[in-house]
């Protein structure tokens, strides 16, 4: 799940718009790339799907515990991070557009902007993770909720709350790993774009990484309500 298929394929032949030897023409190659990356995203749906299915079942079984756990998360940070990530999706979409129009300078800067926003997201995430250690709500490693956290978690049962926080770390952790991989791919694009590798005739890598980045964004779009907004804050 760590690589975008088409991208690896074309790392070798840059700049020119020539198609790879196994294809008849550029058009066939682009269609194959596009189908390849979408299939890859479908495998990602199923990959995250397994953990979403487990989450759905435990949330249903232990709703009170999940609700209590959700209260401990900082909704402002979650919402802010959503905005940051959506912003990075915008800059990513615009960078694909710049590649299409052949605006190399805009492409480089938009890709860098995407990386900065992604980095900001991960920074906030790191801060939130740290908060969990401060509050001692890290399952298995540092689990000793006290004070306000304990008051939120106790009604649903501390054991089940630990399950909630396991899902919190597993789901956001998997998401963060995907973000880090995405940042690596973006860096690779920036280097390529500076060299003028991408043209309006050949920008498949930008498009493919873009699709991947948007997918990671979509995962977060669901993680935000599923983790932060359980049972409301009224």
């Amino acid at each position: 799940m760590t690589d975008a298929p088409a991208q690896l394929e074309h790392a070798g032949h840059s700049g020119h718009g020539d198609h790879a030897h196994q294809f008849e023409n550029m058009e066939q190659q682009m269609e194959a790339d596009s189908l390849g990356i979408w299939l890859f995203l479908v495998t990602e749906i199923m990959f995250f799907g397994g953990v979403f299915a487990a989450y759905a079942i435990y949330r249903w079984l232990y709703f009170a515990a999940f609700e209590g756990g959700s209260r401990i998360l900082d909704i402002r940070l979650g919402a802010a991070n959503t905005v940051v990530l959506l912003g990075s999706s915008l800059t990513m979409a615009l960078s694909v557009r710049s590649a299409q129009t052949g605006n190399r300078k805009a492409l480089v800067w938009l890709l860098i902007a995407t990386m900065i926003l992604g980095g900001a997201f991960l920074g906030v995430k790191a801060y939130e993770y740290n908060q969990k250690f401060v509050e001692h709500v890290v399952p298995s490693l540092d689990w000793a909720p006290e004070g306000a956290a304990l008051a939120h978690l106790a009604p649903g049962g501390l054991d089940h709350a630990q399950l909630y926080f396991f899902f919190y770390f597993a789901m956001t952790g998997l998401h963060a790993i995907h973000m880090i991989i995405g940042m690596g791919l973006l860096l690779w694009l920036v280097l390529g774009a500076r060299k003028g590798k991408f043209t309006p005739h050949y920008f498949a890598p930008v498009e493919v990484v873009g699709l991947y980045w948007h997918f990671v964004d979509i995962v977060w779009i669901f993680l935000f309500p599923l983790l932060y907004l359980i049972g409301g804050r009224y």
Partner: protein
Amino acid sequence: MSTATLEPRVHAPRNYLNADYGWKSWLFTLDHKRIALLYMVSVTFFFIIGGSFAVLMRIHLVEPQGALVQPETYNKLFTMHGIVMIFFFLIPSIPAVLGNFLVPLMVGARDLAFPKLNLLSWYIYLVGGMFTLYAGLAGGVDTGWTFYTPYSSTYSNTQVTAVAIGVFITGFSSILTGLNFIVTIHKMRAPGLTWFRMPLFLWAMYATSIIMVLGTPVLAITIFLLALEHLFHVGIFSPALGGDPLLFQHLFWFYSHPAVYIMILPAMGVVSEIIACFARKRIFGYKIVAFSSVAIAVLGFLVWGHHMFVTGQSIYEGLIFSLLSFLVAIPSAIKVFNWTSTLYKGSISYDAPMLYALGFIGLFTMGGLTGLFLASLATDVHLNGTYFIVAHFHYIMVGGAVMGYLGGIHFWWPKISGRKYPNGWAALAAAIIFVGFNLTFFPQFLLGYLGMPRRYAFYPAEFQVLNVMSSAGATVLGVGYLIPLIYLMWSMRYGPVAESNPWGATGLEWKTPSPPPTENFPEIPVVTEEAYAYAEEEAPLD
């Protein structure tokens, strides 16, 4: 099947085997045919490892108290046998060896859509295999290939993490192969090769790839969660914190039941090719056979709960899964009837591949029909977890998938190696394997019905007679598997040179020289006829 014995053939025309020499030309090759051979060598290696575990188990079970090893060791033997055979032999066998070799040839393309991805998937497979071998050498693992929690997560202190990592990694090799095939079949078919002109092997590979792409990621995440549970005891699959062990089983079987179809569907595709060729007939009911492959792939995802009828899952859930399990039997039955009807008024020859294919039909029929006992709720209660299960899935996986794989290897061997093997030896091996297989596994149906549970390192004395029969059969089967290994290797050097179409088969792969040139076809072919156009005239069915 080592490739090292291939020598430069000075007078031979340039082909994919003599295009380049040296280890680099193999380890960094992007040619799907060479990657197929890399896979062939690796899956053979793992087959020998998994097979030797099986031999040790069968020797051990000759005596009721266990003849060979301690119970702990026996548990590791059957676990490693299952893991190696399923994840490192059966799942990659036909897709990664024959599929890799044939899909581009059959669609009339120069390579798969993503050759670098293809090579990457072999390396991923190897890395996963290394982790698993490491786990085996570092003490083994004793959870059973099913990794049921909480035993695997909390109680087993064997190499669970290493094996979990190995299986997790190997999964991605399977995903990438499936993705590559789907894209290739969709986008790279030669001019004129419409969906309903495709050979049924391609339909089978397409259906298999759907399962690989949609199912394998769920196994990956499940194994990942299992590893977390094993390392940190977070409770997601163990009742300590309110987790439910049955959830692990649901997620595990969501992939691992369809995985059976990853093994059997490609074999069905192989058998369709062979039957058509050696009966010189178009497959009876071509479209229905094609659609039944896709139907099996889709329905195969809806039946996983039949592994859990006695686990304490909801009985209503059991009802649904029982019904769906029966449904998946129907496309399989349709295939068997259509293959049989293909023989009608054909011109049947008994070359070795055909014997394997007919053996497949027989064993698959028995394996499939015994599945009815296990789809039916009341009888499954008695048979679940006994040797009946072991016999049933070996009929499908060994009698079905391995027979199909061997049949395919024999059918396309002249194309792959450019050499012919001795047909008499091959026919003898097919007969020995068929007899040995039935001797080994038929007694296990009886053992299961009598109530002997599987995974027992020792057992009550009354089961000994049948166990000895099974072990005796296993030696016959083992010999049967060694014979092809020997004469196929022999043929690579000494076999007579094969012409481009030694069987008189249809299909694009036979229209290019044996072995094919690196670019597969001097010129991309144009397809103008249906698959299996063996006949010159058509006759009504009477």
